[in-house]
């Protein structure tokens, strides 16, 4: 780069990257911030206003006439409309047509001669010359501005009442064995394809490359039939954890074999030949030399497979039941989108719980992820 054109151009580069980074991170940031906000504030203001005081219109019902006390010959009902929360009341009213008819501190004359006073701090008084009748309290409309409130209540709610905690365990139950099992199987196959000469090897490699892109959709119906058949034959349920572990193993194998074979084929031939001269068998060579050397590739695949099985929805919907002890996080989240479509405090908190584990894996093991991606794709060019 030539220094004369550098500085103004560099500013443009810095600014455009900053803009792109903002565009790519704000959606997730919005989710996280929203999930920590008080649910009443979340429902009425955007997450970008989370730090400013929000103003909301609420309807409160004052305590009923049974709480009235007699004072100086007048009947009084008093209390606090904000119910202990901090905030400021700017306006109030007693009819839904004019919810902001009076300013805080003013006294409103109610229809039946009672007088209502609401102070800015939320305390109110209804005063009447005669005994207040009726069974229900007076409805009061207030415009309250409340300071920003952050809370873990949303998380507590979804973990308990919405069964997200249980689904978290289910997702873990699916993902961990489905990550570990294919590694063993694929590693041996990859070694055979990389270092053991036998007729048909090239064709098998071509088949694996072809299977890499076979759409999952092709497998769903035949396997569903097969599982139903096996389940009926042995008298066991068709949708079980064992079934989904094996399914994920099968679907993950092409990538596992491909990645590991590419990596193993790149290891130096001399190591294996000298070991063979020393009388080591293929089994020994594989276990004692190849497997430890292939650790980076094994780690890459493990991360891919874990992210894929944890994030998977389709396989879980087809091969696993929808009961509370089987529904995984992604499935639960789709259900919540249907049943709690407008309750953003529940959706945002649930969504964040489903993405937090992949994000931790991503940030801590990013190095291996990148290496695996490069090994899996750049080769074609």
């Amino acid at each position: 780069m030539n220094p004369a054109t550098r500085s103004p151009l560099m500013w443009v580069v810095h600014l455009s990257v900053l803009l792109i980074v903002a565009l790519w991170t704000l959606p997730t940031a919005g989710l996280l911030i929203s999930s920590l906000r008080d649910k009443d504030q979340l429902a009425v203001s955007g997450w970008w206003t989370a730090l400013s005081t929000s103003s909301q219109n609420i309807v409160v019902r004052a305590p009923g006439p049974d709480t009235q006390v007699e004072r100086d010959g007048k009947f009084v009902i008093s209390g606090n409309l904000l119910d202990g929360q901090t905030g400021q009341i700017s306006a109030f009213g007693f009819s839904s047509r004019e919810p902001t008819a009076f300013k805080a501190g003013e006294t409103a004359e109610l229809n039946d001669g009672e007088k209502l006073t609401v102070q800015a701090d939320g305390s109110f008084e209804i005063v009447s010359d005669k005994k207040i009748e009726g069974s229900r309290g007076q409805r009061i409309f207030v415009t309250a501005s409340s300071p920003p409130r952050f809370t873990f209540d949303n998380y507590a709610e979804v973990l308990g009442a919405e069964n997200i905690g249980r689904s978290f365990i289910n997702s873990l139950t699916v993902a961990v064995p489905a990550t570990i099992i294919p590694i063993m199987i694929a590693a041996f196959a990859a070694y055979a394809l990389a270092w053991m000469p036998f007729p048909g090897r090239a064709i098998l490699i071509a088949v694996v490359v072809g299977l890499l892109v076979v759409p999952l959709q092709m497998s769903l119906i035949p396997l569903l039939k097969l599982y139903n058949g096996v389940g009926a034959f042995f008298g066991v349920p068709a949708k079980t954890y064992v079934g989904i572990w094996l399914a994920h193993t099968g679907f993950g194998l092409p990538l596992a074999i491909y990645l590991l074979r590419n990596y193993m084929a790149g290891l130096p031939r001399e190591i294996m030949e000298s070991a063979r001269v020393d009388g080591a068998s293929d089994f020994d060579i594989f276990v004692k030399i190849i497997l430890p050397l292939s650790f980076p590739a094994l780690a890459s695949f493990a991360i891919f497979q874990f992210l894929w099985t944890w994030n998977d929805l389709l396989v879980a919907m087809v091969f696993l039941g929808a009961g509370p002890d089987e529904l995984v996080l992604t499935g639960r989240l789709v259900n919540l989108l249907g049943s709690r479509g407008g309750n953003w405090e529940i959706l945002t908190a649930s969504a964040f719980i489903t993405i937090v584990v992949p994000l931790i894996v991503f940030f801590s093991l990013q190095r291996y992820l990148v290496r695996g991606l490069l090994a899996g794709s750049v080769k074609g060019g």
Partner: protein
Amino acid sequence: MLFQLVKAAGFMLGGVIGCAAYFWGTSFILDLIFPSKGKSGAIASRNLRITNAIRPWLFLGPALLALTVYLIYPVFMSLWYSVHDRAGQNFVGASNYAWMINDGEFRQSIYNNFLWLLVVPALATFFGLIIAALTDRIWWGNIAKTLIFMPMAISFVGAAVIWKFIYDFRPEGAEQIGLLNAIVVAFGGAPQAWITLPFWNNFFLMAILVWIQTGFAMVILSAALRGIPEETIEAAVIDGANGWQIFFKIMVPQIWGTIAVVWTTITILVLKVFDIVLAMTNGQWQSQVLANLMFDWMFRGGGDFGRGAAIAVVIMILVIPIMVWNIRNAAKEMKGH
């Protein structure tokens, strides 16, 4: 719950030990039957030849079995189901395919899928390339890359929730809590229920996949850009080329192969896109795509396996050109080694 975790751990442990036992055991038995150590020359070399011919298949055995059961057998069975009735019992010829051609929802899905195919790989690759080129020049480029790469770890369903929140719609006059509508209102526009606008909603769903896949394109293209020999760029600088010319005329042509790989990888993903559509619209408001339609028919009204399989076959046919291209590339590369 505890039992479930114990069961999972047990299965995992059993699987690992079972695999190890299988590989070790079969190797041991093979050597027992055809010993090569401590035998005279002719027998030893004959036995060695036999074990060397058999052992690869023992190593490959479990993998081949799993691939056959979970991928190869289903491909043929899906073809078979696609010419049978809804229960998969009676042969119906091409009638599932005939139904498909005349079905409005299927045609809508094909149309939308082509829109997705045109837009998503192009945008994700383009953004990935630009970001890769820009971030390579600044000191905080790696932090920027990590943040842009991050959505890749997020599930499609999680991403759908994130973006549904951005597209959230409140009637005009109410305070908008969705970012997009808030921006539109701030500029004096009228809020829209974005994901219910036919045709345009496709693009709002595509944005989610572009958001997820740009990081993938960026990582791979960034590595490819770094692999370009310095000399070619220096030569261009000496010849007086400016930044744009260097990038588009010198650098990009050298990484066409990698761009093609990124493009096709995202194309495959787009053909299978399912979770995003299911979570955002479930195909309503004319946003249906093939994978979601297939899933729908698998279970709709007790399930129509014939039609579901026929739709799967269509997805498969769309994938085949890329599959052939990949296999040819892999074969070429193996010859090179």
